[in-house]
């Protein structure tokens, strides 16, 4: 008995936390995330959500509060964006090392200075080395569904890692779309109460995080890497169970007309959604175009990516982010993932849409065109006023 609503991405994210029955929320406002703290404050205060909301004085503290609460065994949630995410950075590393399965929404906004509030994925992608799992959504339905899925993965005994659910500023956060809501009871069947394997407990008192010499630190890190590797099958299970219960299907990646494609575009987030229209148009013109959207950037879906790209003749990567010095982050990730593969098709890297500049179907048409002319060694800047 699911109900349709029209809601902005920020509300979809918040209701995702509601159906996940989170116990503790701690968050700090920042444009373009504010509707999340506002709606969750409202829902906590009117009883629709039975959760503690710790109204902290910074994002750094928000993440720290979530980590502390999670260590006691509470299901914890926060949300932020850009500067807030960056300010949390030390605690992002912390959540991973402490193996606290916090789930966080991040609204992609470009990094200052200069001040900016518009969409770009540099904020979250530049956290790629912290060990967080990252889900990039491309619709509000996906945002909503991804929250309980994220908890299910995060809390899994073979994973025990924090997960970020990432959505584009404005293009999703502030855009209202059709969203099918879950039934609360059914959601609880999908995602039962969190039962932690390790927790702070006066009846079984242990110390967590004591100084660790070179004797065992190495192995503790090794276990984090293994948890990332384990996460792949855990995700597949969690998403197939989700499909069985709610009918909506998600993969590690989304393939769109890739099966017979000569040229495959790799992208994430809303740009990947927009690209579907371009692929359709190109197909109409007889161009064998396809799209590979990475829904998960961490764990990096190596196997899937390699499989999908194995027979492409040309691989294009669209990055709405910049790692200064190397160009687009997804470009680097894809090249690296494909290096030791037998398919040696050239991979082209395109930058577009930084700082909220729009990425339209035309932009993506231009990318397909530019690929014909350019050297893959260069970083190709789309629509830059160079």
């Amino acid at each position, binding site marked *: 008995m699911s109900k349709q609503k029209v809601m902005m991405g920020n509300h979809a994210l918040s209701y995702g936390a509601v159906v996940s029955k989170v116990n503790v929320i701690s968050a700090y406002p920042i444009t373009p995330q504010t509707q999340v703290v506002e709606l969750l404050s409202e829902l906590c205060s009117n009883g629709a959500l039975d959760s503690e909301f710790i109204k902290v004085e910074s994002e750094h503290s928000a993440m720290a509060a979530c980590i502390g609460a999670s260590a006691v065994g509470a299901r914890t949630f926060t949300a932020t964006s850009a500067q807030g995410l960056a300010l949390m950075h030390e605690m992002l590393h912390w959540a991973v090392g402490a*193996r606290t399965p916090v789930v966080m929404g991040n609204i992609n906004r470009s990094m200052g200075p200069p001040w900016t509030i518009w969409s770009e994925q540099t904020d979250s992608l530049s956290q790629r080395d912290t060990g967080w799992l990252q889900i990039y959504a491309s619709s509000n339905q996906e945002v909503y569904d991804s929250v309980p899925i994220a908890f299910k993965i995060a809390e899994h005994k073979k994973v025990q890692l924090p997960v970020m659910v990432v959505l584009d500023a404005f293009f999703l956060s502030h855009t209202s779309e059709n969203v099918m809501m879950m039934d609360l009871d059914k959601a609880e069947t999908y995602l039962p109460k969190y039962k932690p394997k390790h927790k702070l407990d006066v009846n079984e008192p242990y*110390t967590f995080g004591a100084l660790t010499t070179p004797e065992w630190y190495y192995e503790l890190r090794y276990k984090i890497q293994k948890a990332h590797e384990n996460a792949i099958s855990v995700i597949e299970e969690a998403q197939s169970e989700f499909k069985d219960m709610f009918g909506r299907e998600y993969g590690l990646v989304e393939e769109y007309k890739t099966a017979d494609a000569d040229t495959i575009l790799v992208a994430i987030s809303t740009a990947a959604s927009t690209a579907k229209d371009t692929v359709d148009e190109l197909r109409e013109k007889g161009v064998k175009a396809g799209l590979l959207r990475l829904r998960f950037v961490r764990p990096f879906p190596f196997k899937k990516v390699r499989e999908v790209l194995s027979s492409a003749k040309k691989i294009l990567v669209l990055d709405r982010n910049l790692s200064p010095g190397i160009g687009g982050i997804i470009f680097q990730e894809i090249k690296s993932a494909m290096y030791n593969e037998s398919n040696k098709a050239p991979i082209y890297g395109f930058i577009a849409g930084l700082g909220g500049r729009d990425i339209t179907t035309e932009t993506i048409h231009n990318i397909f065109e530019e690929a014909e002319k350019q050297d893959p060694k260069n970083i190709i800047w789309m629509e830059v006023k160079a």
Partner: protein
Amino acid sequence: MKKDGDKIIFENAADLPDMAKSMGTTRFNKTGTWRNERPIVDTDKCTGCGICWKYCPDMSILEDENGKAAIDYEFCKGCAICVEVCPVKAISMVEEEK
């Protein structure tokens, strides 16, 4: 995970907890080796007032069967606080064997 007295022995990564969860205690660390000098209680003088016990930062003052102070040499670091605080000067420091 195995225990060898106060020491904890892991076989390998699989044997470790998922994060640094400490299951042993610092009793594994015999800080008695830190001492250059050792406190000696003169049980004749000692009144059992408990003041040295109260102030020892290393839980190294024990109570003997007569209610007098006794030193736990396995852990006593030799700071001499007990010597300082004893109201009847029942404790004194002597050099450790070299």
